[in-house]
């Protein structure tokens, strides 16, 4: 077994705040939208908590952004410029999750400090971090003060359009949080990735013949 430091401290802090914040945002967002069906807290409290945590998460986003902008770790987000290569690798990864993982096959993606995402993670996290999270934040800020940002709200097609985009993203992240938490449990043992991401920063990988590194999700 080999220990590789793949989650630096700023990334772990960002991820921890993000994890707690997103769960709180999903719950308070659901409370705001479904008051009467869900009664965790009052509408007013839900709006207030949602707004405050929203701003904390926007600030937190910049921890992530500045860390990657000012360190060479940005390489983990470099896109694969060959679509053929990317989709072949993604297909291999899908085969692994759909069959190979059950019979103990090695993970086709080899984790390293500068290449910690498998091809599917790489594409998904780029879409999430560079498109969906900023869009969620911008639409959230516009809805926070519709009157103050009237010009921008109007530019995007009106408050109903902005809200619809915000809710569509809420729906996506409601799915994503289940998916993300489950995928994180596919380490060996199941708590391995949680421990690495939240506590130690180190992933333990098996050395493989010909690679020197081992499987990871």
């Amino acid at each position, binding site marked *: 077994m080999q220990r590789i430091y793949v989650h630096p401290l700023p990334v772990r802090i960002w991820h921890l705040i993000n994890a707690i914040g997103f769960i709180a945002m999903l719950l308070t967002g659901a409370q*705001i*939208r*479904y*008051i*009467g*069906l869900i009664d965790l807290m*009052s*509408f*007013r409290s839900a*709006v*207030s908590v949602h*707004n405050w945590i929203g701003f904390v998460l926007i600030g937190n986003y910049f921890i992530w952004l500045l860390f990657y902008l000012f360190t060479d770790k940005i390489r983990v987000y470099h896109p694969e410029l060959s679509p053929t290569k990317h989709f072949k690798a993604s297909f291999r990864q899908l085969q692994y*999750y*759909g*069959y190979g*993982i*059950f*019979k103990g096959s090695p993970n086709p993606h080899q984790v390293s400090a500068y290449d910690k995402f498998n091809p599917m993670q790489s594409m998904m996290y780029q879409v999430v971090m560079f498109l969906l999270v900023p869009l969620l934040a911008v639409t959230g800020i516009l*809805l926070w*003060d*519709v*009157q103050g940002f009237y010009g921008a709200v*109007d530019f995007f*097609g*009106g*408050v*109903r*359009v902005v*809200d*619809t985009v915000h*809710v*569509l993203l*809420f*729906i*996506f992240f*409601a*799915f*994503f*949080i*289940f*998916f993300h938490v*489950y995928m994180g*449990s596919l380490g060996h043992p199941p708590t391995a990735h949680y421990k690495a991401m939240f506590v130690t920063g180190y992933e333990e990988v098996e050395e493989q013949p010909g690679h020197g590194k081992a499987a990871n999700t």
Partner: protein
Amino acid sequence: MARSRRVNTMSMAAFHKCLLIAAFAAFLALFPARFMAANAAPADSLSDGDKQCLGCHGFDGLKKELAGGKLLSLHVPADGFAKSVHGIIGCASCHADVDLKTHSQKPKTIASSREYSIAMAKICGGCHAEALKQNETSVHATLLASGNPSAPVCTDCHGSHAVSPKTAYDTCVGCHLAAMEAHQKWLPNAGLHLEVVSCAACHAPSAQRMVDLRLYDGVGKKWVAEKQGRPEFENMARAADTDGNGLDAMELRKLMGQINHDEAVQPKNLRGRIELRTGVEAHQLSGKSKAIKDCTSCHQQGAEPFQSVMVSVVSADGKPVRYRAQKEVLGSVLSVDSLREFYAVGGTRNVLLDGLLILAVLAGLAVPIGHQILKRIVKRQLEREAQQSAAAKPKDRDHA
């Protein structure tokens, strides 16, 4: 006794002005009717009797000296009165006690402007009995009964001659100057709330509310008003409502398309406001202790204000022209564009998005459940293959 002497005063300058304008009016009367129609002032629509009253009361300088030397303006803006909702009923409907034969010799006795306004409220009740009844229990009437000199009576809100229905925020803040600051202390997005929720919608808590989707000119930054003599909105809405049961989301889209069809450079949108279903109920205004503060009165699916929806435009005379829409338009996916400027979080949810959320959560749960099921199937298959393989090996050995 000298203090109680009442004198009608009209300065010489005002009198000359009176004569000049009368002469000018006579001059205009000589012009052909077509020319007059094109330049008709609202006051021309008044009856001859009203014009007779305005012959004197139409001049700005007409004043009456009250007890204590205070001056009461007796000026009635002719156009303002003619355009008001009372323009059609005429002066005598409210001032029936005035006898034109003796009016100039025996003018009315008025102790003070305030007392006269209070007395005239009873006259208002002659036609607006229900409004006056609703007002009896209001915070305004309670203050008046307690002798509060600032308590408003009918004319303080509605005007004395340029009378109009009042739902505008501006009317209330005429007295309640600190309303915005007071709401900002506890109400999130207070400015937006005061813009899209009429004061009475919260301060008349037992009244029934509705959504008034009013046509707004986003380019001109003003409410769209119908042109004089061309009331088209209701006809267009009626034509769009093919089944006659109120506009549904598709019909509303069609209507908005038609409204913006001729003026593509001036897109007009519907801006929603929470109003009372009947203006009469607005008179039961309560104090802040009884006003609605519960957010879920609106921000909840099925909330009472969203049970009644009207589409409206301001008519040429300033009154709203309304046409009924179905309440489902507020949550329809087809309304994303046609109702782009009205959305109440929690209250006007898009039903399609609710379905998508259920699917997303089910899909989120299906991933771990499905993957674990797949794991068992694959493992069972692998075990079976291993057993078959193990069973095959002894046979191979036997053959060997």
